[in-house]
């Protein structure tokens, strides 16, 4: 399959850039921060995204979606990385939808996906239980109780966890090695949500479940082992985080290049110094390498390729490293003003690190890649 976007994907990308630049630029995130907005995103922006069909890009046509695939969705993720737009896009339209598509029964999909498409339901995936990604640690327990189930445990740093309508919670089924994904209303009795304000000013939350009643039909797939689905969900999350970091890196790099072509010191443009030129050219090359990994990974997701786990780890690892380099170079090359909050550069740096840490940083993924290859 050719490593290029098709016509439809290019149009979607262009439309996304146009919309986000006009309606949800970095200034929006800054305003949310300055206002200490409790929701953490602009409902009207999300509403507009829903109207553009973005909530349903990954939803099958049967449930009212566009069924446009991960390459398409990845273009939106990338563009949202450029503008640092906060919205339920990642937690709901990428992870929530994917969870239902991967693990939901026909009835669950039919019930929930149209609501997501319509913008009536937001989700959050409650997955990790500590500050560092570790899919092997699932201490949250789901046990049978009468005709239903009961959920106990805690989840940490759940993106959108304090704002989503419902939480998709991974849990171990008591007395088995099996994993389950269950749907819990955020407002349900026994659920405690504590918002954590992160450096990137996105929503994150620590969530505790104390004897939360879960109806049988709220267990995705009716209780079939969700281990494979969870693993794929993490890959999907990482692929889109990589796309987001790619967009972020490109944008902060472009701003840096523009600055190098504007700022003068010692009577010449600082972009005329070869020391900075070579570093900028190296970073350009790194971003080009990242682009290819991200696109290949998104294509592999759509093709259902066996290579998905390997590629997702490579893409996320490279994205983490490139975004770190791009944001560090951005601050350094901007000099003093790069350190001021007045410029947006710091917002890129903060988001880059949080997105890298989510679902595993570059070290985690390099090691996961090696393990997947058997070394």
């Amino acid at each position, binding site marked *: 399959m050719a490593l290029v976007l098709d016509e439809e994907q290019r149009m979607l990308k262009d439309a996304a850039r146009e919309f986000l630049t006009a309606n949800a630029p970095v200034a929006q995130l800054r305003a949310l921060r300055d206002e200490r907005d409790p929701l953490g995103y602009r409902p009207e922006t999300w509403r507009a995204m829903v109207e553009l069909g973005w909530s349903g890009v990954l939803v099958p046509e049967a449930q009212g979606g566009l069924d446009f695939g991960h390459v398409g969705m990845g273009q939106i993720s990338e563009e949202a990385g450029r503008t640092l737009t906060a919205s339920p896009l990642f937690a709901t339209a990428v992870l929530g939808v994917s969870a239902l598509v991967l693990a939901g029964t026909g009835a669950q999909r039919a019930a929930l996906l149209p609501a997501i498409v319509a913008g009536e339901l937001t989700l959050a995936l409650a997955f990790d239980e500590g500050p560092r990604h570790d899919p092997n640690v699932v201490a949250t327990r789901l046990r049978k109780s009468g005709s239903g189930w009961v959920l106990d445990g805690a989840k940490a740093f759940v993106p959108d966890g304090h704002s989503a309508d419902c939480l998709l919670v991974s849990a171990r089924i008591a007395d088995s090695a099996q994993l389950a994904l269950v749907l819990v209303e955020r407002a349900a009795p026994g659920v405690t949500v504590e918002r954590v*304000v992160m*450096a990137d000013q996105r929503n994150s939350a620590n969530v505790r479940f104390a004897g939360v009643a879960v109806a049988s039909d709220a267990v995705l797939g009716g209780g079939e082992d969700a281990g494979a689905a969870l693993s794929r969900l993490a890959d999907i999350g990482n692929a889109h985080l990589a796309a987001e970091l790619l967009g972020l890196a490109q944008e902060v790099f472009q701003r840096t290049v523009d600055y190098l072509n504007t700022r003068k*010191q010692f009577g010449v443009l600082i972009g005329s110094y070869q020391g900075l030129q070579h570093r900028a050219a190296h970073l350009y090359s790194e971003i080009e390498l990242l682009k290819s990994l991200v696109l290949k990974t998104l294509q592999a997701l759509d093709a259902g390729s066996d290579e998905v786990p390997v590629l997702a780890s490579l893409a996320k690892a490279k994205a983490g490293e490139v975004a770190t380099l791009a944001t560090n170079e951005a601050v*350094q090359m901007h000099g*003093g003003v790069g350190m001021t909050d007045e410029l947006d550069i710091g917002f890129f740096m903060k988001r880059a690190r949080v997105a890298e*840490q*989510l679902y595993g940083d570059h*070290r*985690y993924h390099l*090691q996961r890649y090696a393990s997947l290859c058997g070394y």
Partner: protein
Amino acid sequence: MSDLEQFRRETRAWLETNCPQSQREPVVEFEDRCWGGTKWKFTSDDQKRWLEVMAARGWTAPDWPAEYGGGGLNKEETKILREEMQRIGARVPLFSMGLSMIGPALLKYGSEALKRQHIPNIVKGKIWWCQGYSEPNYGSDLAGLQTRAEDRGDHFLVNGQKVWTSYADRADWMFCLVRTDPAAPKHAGISLVLFDMNTPGVTVKPIRLISGKSPFCETFLDNVRVEKDQLVGELNRGWELATYLLTHEREMIGSIGQSNVDARLYPAAIAELGLVHGQLADSALRTDIARWEMDHRAFELTAERITDEATAGHGVGAASSMLKYAGTEINKRRHELLVAIQGQRGLVWEGDAYDHGITATQWLRTKGNSIEGGTSEIQLNIIAKRILGLGRE
């Protein structure tokens, strides 16, 4: 018993008597270290008393001449005083840019009158000094500065804008680089002047950094009157002083990585990640931490070696650029690793449970280390040209 042994014994006894117990505790908060000045609020009577008894002996500036209020100690005595203070964990009684920067510059370049006016106040911590160097369009290219000081007979009239004046909002006086001859080549028309921050026309506006609130300010100078007798050194020869002061600043910033009592990263990593088969669970992080500790140790030893070489009389010059470059880059790496060790927890911005985001704010703050006091690029230029002699036709 030699004089020095005698001095050590007396010093030890005096410190034991005079240094309050509370002033022997490690410094935790910013205010634990006294910066002095008219606006300073002492955290305790002990802090005030400790400053006063030390200043009375001139031991806030132990090796400065006694005639201006300094301690008048020689090198060996100064070293002994430091060692004895360290022995009991005594805090420095006063920490200021007066002591570390403008004081030494005044002693070297200032007129007798200026020394008499300012040095005793620096020693006693009466005045908080801030520096006026960088300007919005002149950061690395400091010598391009545009703040004008017009000669008005008995005084200068200063107009312009300074940035990155740290603690300008708490400071009493500024030492400030100004252009006194706009027609001269850029390095040749600069002078260093001193003025009271309460002078009419001085306005201060704090700068918010990516790491949050900061001590840095923009300072606007609007027809500020500066008396002629507050010129340090010769008119239009201020660049020499600036270079002297920058070297001092470089050394201070380059040593940031050193100031930590225990800079090792692995205890935190073990606490956070745990061991598997006796090794840190994340082996890639383990290697990165080990490499950082290697470089950090090498840096500390290098700072020590260069001091020892200077003492032995065969040091190289221009070492401050190398130390500034290496020290700040290593410190930046340190904080990237601290975030990596803590994962999402290291990126929390607010909240009691997370120490108010101290890991993240410190991490972001260190990004400025390789910019302030001359960027890493400027330091590399200095090494390439002055030490390696590159690019001379």
